[in-house]
């Protein structure tokens, strides 16, 4: 199988994923929604297996191939976390994200051959980046929830249910953030000889993790609730700086992590 056949698998897979993401809001039986989602994943896996055989090597080399894994992991992990936490939007969101990466592969095929520099050619590349994508999604959702809670808090009635949702999102998001970070450490040791070099990107990742840790620990006691809530938007700004902003900071010129 080659990229030429991709479209015949990608379209049905996307259709199934999006259907699951929409039908989850209806009164349709949960098992049917699950079945649709899994069918989508099945179609996608079928292509990847065939493609792998066709290439005679694991499809891990080009950006296009890497995106296949993003789509797969996003749909699978999104489905699992949805099953675990029962938040419908989690399924819709991860389906949508999975489709975005499929679409890039369909509409920007010339990027298939984007050359992967040697340091990026590692089995850690895909899980490291997907883990971060999932964590950004959850922490982003937690930030939105925090704004709602700040308003409710301002009116003097914090919503315990919402707190529960926020904390779960932060815990899950932070879990993925740390997994991404730790995989990055192992990878860095393999590629550059040290697991942590305080490169600007790493420094900002440290700062971001510290901010979420402050939130997690402050939530263990009920002192200073307003400050605690504001930690989430602040942490999310730090997260955005780590992800996108670092490339523009003067302190980061020459960082090993800026791939432009």
């Amino acid at each position, binding site marked *: 199988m080659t990229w030429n056949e991709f479209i015949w698998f990608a379209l049905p897979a996307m259709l199934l994923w999006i259907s699951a993401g929409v039908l989850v809001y209806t009164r349709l039986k949960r098992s049917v929604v699950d079945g649709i989602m899994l069918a989508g994943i099945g179609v996608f896996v079928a292509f990847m297996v065939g493609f792998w055989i066709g290439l005679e090597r694991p499809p891990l080399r080009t950006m296009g191939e890497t995106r296949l894994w993003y789509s797969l992991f996003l749909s699978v992990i999104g489905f699992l976390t949805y099953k675990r936490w029962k938040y419908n939007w989690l399924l819709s969101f991860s389906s949508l994200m999975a489709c975005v990466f499929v679409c890039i592969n369909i509409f920007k095929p010339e990027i298939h051959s984007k*050359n*992967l520099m040697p340091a990026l*050619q590692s089995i850690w590349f895909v899980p490291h980046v997907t883990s971060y994508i999932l964590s950004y999604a959850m922490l982003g959702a937690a930030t939105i929830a925090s704004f709602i809670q700040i308003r409710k808090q301002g009116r003097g009635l914090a919503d315990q249910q919402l707190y529960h949702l926020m904390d779960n999102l932060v815990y899950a998001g932070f879990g993925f953030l740390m*997994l991404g970070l730790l995989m990055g450490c192992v990878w860095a040791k393999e590629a550059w*000889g040290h697991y942590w070099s305080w490169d600007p990107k790493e420094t900002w990742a440290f*700062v971001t993790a510290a901010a979420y840790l402050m939130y997690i620990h402050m939530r*263990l*006691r009920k002192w200073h609730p307003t400050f605690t809530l504001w930690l989430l938007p602040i942490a999310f700004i730090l997260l955005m700086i780590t992800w996108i902003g670092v490339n523009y900071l003067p302190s980061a010129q020459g960082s090993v992590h800026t791939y432009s």
Partner: protein
Amino acid sequence: MEENKRSMWQFPWRYPESIAFVLGVLVVGYVLQAFIGSFDFSLLLWPVNGILGGVVILLSLLLALKRKNPIVQWLSGVPMAVSLIGGLLLLGLLMGLTPQVKHIHHGDTSPASVLGLRQMTTSWPFVLLYFFTLLSLGTLIMRRLFHFRIADYAFYLNHIGLWLLLFAAGWGAADMKRYVMHIREGEVEWRVYNDRGDVLELPVGIRLNDFTMEEYPPQLTVIDRETGNAQPESKPDYLQLEELPVSGRLAHWDIEVEQYIHQAIRNSDSTYHEVFMPGASPAALVKTVDRTNGEISRGWISCGNRAQLYMTLPLTNEYMLVMTQPEPKRFVSDINIYTEDGTEAHALLAVNKPHRAGPWMLYQYGYDYEAGKLSSYTSIELVYDPWVVAVYIGIILLAAGSACMLWIGNRRKEATDDVE
């Protein structure tokens, strides 16, 4: 709102006291930094780090034995944890905004240098905060281990994992050695350079048998013959060469690649043929059509290298078609490793494929970038890091803890009011 009436330093201590403590540590740190300069990690060389590390563990244990003491509870409690993490966050922010340097020149008296902002990880405030975090976390872990509950496994995994990681990375920093060795093809080298450029001799010798590189196919682009800038200047177009057919548009020319040879040598008549040898370079036979007037050009182009001239295809008086330098896909050093006791080993070293030789890890580090695949030498980094096993165990525990967090979430329904 009873708590607000409580005056400071009256037990139980909470945020005001913890924040005051962390600020105090920072002030002491900056005074030390200003007067005696950066913390000297070489003072911690083994066995000093081992002994001091043991002292920290012992201290945590003694404190945890006094766990009913309000100061111990405060030191290992939530407000202190948040304040310490907040302090580290603050220093991390300063570090993230100030370009960090390896060495500060003598006589550099700018405030950022004097206060250690440009070398944050060896500055006193950072080192002191690290120390108290380790102590607080250690005491907390011991305290919780005294009433061990299997249900707290996520707590143990996260905190013990992080503690071990911090402990081994921090104390181990002094023992870590990193050197770079440059080896010419066919020669054996024993000398290495440290990050100051001093030459040292190691009990490890390396012979470079062969350095090879695979390259990605290069790209085509149209450049201005005067300035050399790729066109259109606002957003240059590039056409990636790959398996034929390749065609596309660059600026206002339609490009069709008729032939592509990844390893080519020029013939006397300026055509190319395939030869597999180090001096070969990519070459392509290209046909272009100017969309504005239909003018056709056709010819061979090549990016060349040290062994062969490049070749371009003129399009007009102003513009020509060129091939970019290929990017490396993989580079491999075929080496033999010798130790003083006479053992010998063979290895193929590549990026992401390090090799262990006794206590040393060998990493493919670099080569002669200008010569590219014709590089006559390779650069290898040698890393000695005896604490790395402890770091890996910490990473594994912490990763398990993270997995627990994303699976279990927050089990507490509501925040509790007080410690214990």
